[in-house]
């Protein structure tokens, strides 16, 4: 194959430019927006010196749907389906956080059975979401899809339970202001019992498969380290914060829906690296199962939805409610001007804010480590862009 003189000269110029000076020039690589390891339409622009990351800059907005503006023209009840689509891997947690904020504004008392059902589905959602997070994280570390599909087997069972309760698997739209939309179907509790009986063995299998795995240790230990001080100053939350050793969990710190009645621990990490984030999520699944066991044993009878007008008009005021979603501190800030729609609807997105320290975590590591770090933060792009 021959080459024209122009092309040859241009190539020589490029090679000379690349090899002049200290022997290299930084190369800019765009990861995404269409790339399997960016977990959605997310673009990470990294500047590389050889294989070492010198700078990492994220470009987002590909999934921006302007939900906060749309919500200002819809009633409080009509906004609930939007919250499903904010974090579509934890729709129940998003429903719950929004409903708590609206209930605070309206001064609604939620019946005890509704609270127990809410806790049940929030924890099932955590099991499903952590299965996704850990599975894709292991995928990013190079274990091609085997652990992912083992974990998806559990997630599938959780989604089946969502489907039999509210008819939807992903965008559930199950919570309502004042409770939940439907009571539990008869077949749910036996299915959940079977799930709770099977899960400990499954988790033991994952731990036997992964925790001592040499490749996983080599890929994730000491990668993407962040100190607890820096994590707090960067407003990180959820498993990313707890992996640094800070036991900050809103279910303990600011219990909602009766979490104070259930016994569970807050697992924390030690080194704040990617492996600790993985370990914290694995341990949190076990704690969620513990909570689910207690919810099933103490499930109260009674109504599951308080009497709230469909087009409620709260008094002028504001509310800020937070829950511990699988990704961290998820908050909704609502302002009412007395009308049927919120005057201002703001979501505090844990996925976006957890990315604040991505640059600091990635710089100095290799490009492959940046992918693992991004996977360990567990982002959902729907929540970043909203």
């Amino acid at each position, binding site marked *: 194959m021959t080459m024209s003189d122009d092309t040859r000269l241009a190539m020589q110029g490029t090679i000379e430019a690349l090899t002049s000076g200290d022997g290299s020039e930084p190369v800019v690589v765009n990861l995404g927006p269409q790339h399997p390891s960016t977990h959605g339409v997310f673009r990470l622009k990294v500047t590389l010196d050889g294989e070492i990351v010198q700078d990492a800059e994220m470009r987002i907005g590909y999934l921006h749907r302007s939900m906060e503006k749309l919500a200002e023209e819809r009633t409080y009840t009509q906004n609930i389906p939007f919250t499903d689509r904010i974090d579509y891997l934890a729709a129940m947690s998003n429903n719950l956080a929004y409903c708590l904020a609206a209930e605070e504004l309206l001064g609604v008392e939620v019946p005890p059975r509704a609270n127990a059902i809410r806790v049940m589905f929030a924890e099932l959602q955590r099991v499903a979401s952590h299965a996704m997070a850990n599975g894709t994280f292991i995928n990013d570390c190079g274990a091609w899809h085997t652990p992912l599909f083992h974990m998806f087997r559990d997630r599938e069972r959780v989604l089946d339970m969502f489907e039999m309760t509210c008819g939807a698997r992903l965008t559930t739209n199950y919570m309502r202001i004042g409770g939940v939309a439907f009571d539990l179907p008869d077949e749910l509790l036996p299915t959940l019992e079977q799930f709770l009986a099977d899960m400990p063995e499954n988790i033991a299998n994952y731990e036997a498969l992964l925790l001592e795995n040499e490749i996983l240790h080599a890929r994730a230990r000491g990668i993407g380290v962040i100190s607890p001080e820096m994590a707090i100053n960067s407003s990180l939350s959820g498993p990313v914060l707890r992996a640094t050793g800070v036991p900050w969990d809103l279910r303990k710190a600011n219990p909602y829906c009766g979490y104070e009645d259930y016994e569970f621990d807050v697992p924390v990490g030690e080194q704040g690296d990617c492996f600790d984030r993985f370990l914290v999520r694995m341990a949190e699944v076990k704690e969620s199962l513990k909570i689910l066991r207690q919810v099933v044993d103490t499930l109260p009878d009674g109504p599951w939805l308080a009497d709230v007008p469909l087009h409620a008009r709260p008094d002028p005021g504001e509310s800020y409610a937070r829950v511990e979603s699988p990704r961290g501190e998820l*908050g909704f800030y609502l302002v009412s001007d007395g009308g049927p729609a919120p005057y201002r609807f703001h979501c505090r997105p844990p996925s976006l804010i957890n990315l604040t320290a991505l640059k600091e975590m990635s710089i100095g590591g290799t490009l492959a480590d940046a992918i693992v770090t991004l996977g360990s933060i567990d982002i959902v792009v729907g929540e970043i862009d909203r």
Partner: protein
Amino acid sequence: MTSSYDATAAMEIVNASAPGAACVDDGVLFLDPERLVEAVRTLRDAEASDLVFLSNLTAVDHELHFELVYHLQSLDHNHILQVKARVADREDPSLPSLTGVYHGAHLQEREVYDLFGIRFEGHPDLRRMFLWDGFPGYPLRKDFLQMPGQVRAGLPGFPHESEENAWPVPGSVPQRPMHPNDPQPEGELVVAEPDGESEESS
């Protein structure tokens, strides 16, 4: 249970180091935008308040002014404080950036800049985040209207509306009541028919 930190106590802490920088109105702490950074740093470092975690940062457009809302959290004392600051200038609203105090303000301030057009002085990387450079207007302002033809008294039209690409007649889209149970507008509802004629309905 996370308690609310007393706004008066916070005001005393701020005013001890920066006299007059804080005031309390109806139980909410308002800070002077000029001395915001100094005041928030005092609240973060003081032993009694210890507000080390910036939980939330957002803005609200109150049409006459913008209200910046900060939720500051103490992890050790487990209390939360809501802090507000007001910016009256709608043409070129600006405010000092909190990125020097909380690194976590970085992306949240960029989001507010993108959607409200409020500039944060001293922010290291203040660019639009979700929308592209040159996007007309700031969507979360109340004078940015959602739908073409939407009309609100005293406000300009939809930003994309231009002479050649105009929608039929502003205001011709009938205002649909949200629900039959909602209060109906005065007079009879006029529903536009596809063929251009209109028909009265009850």
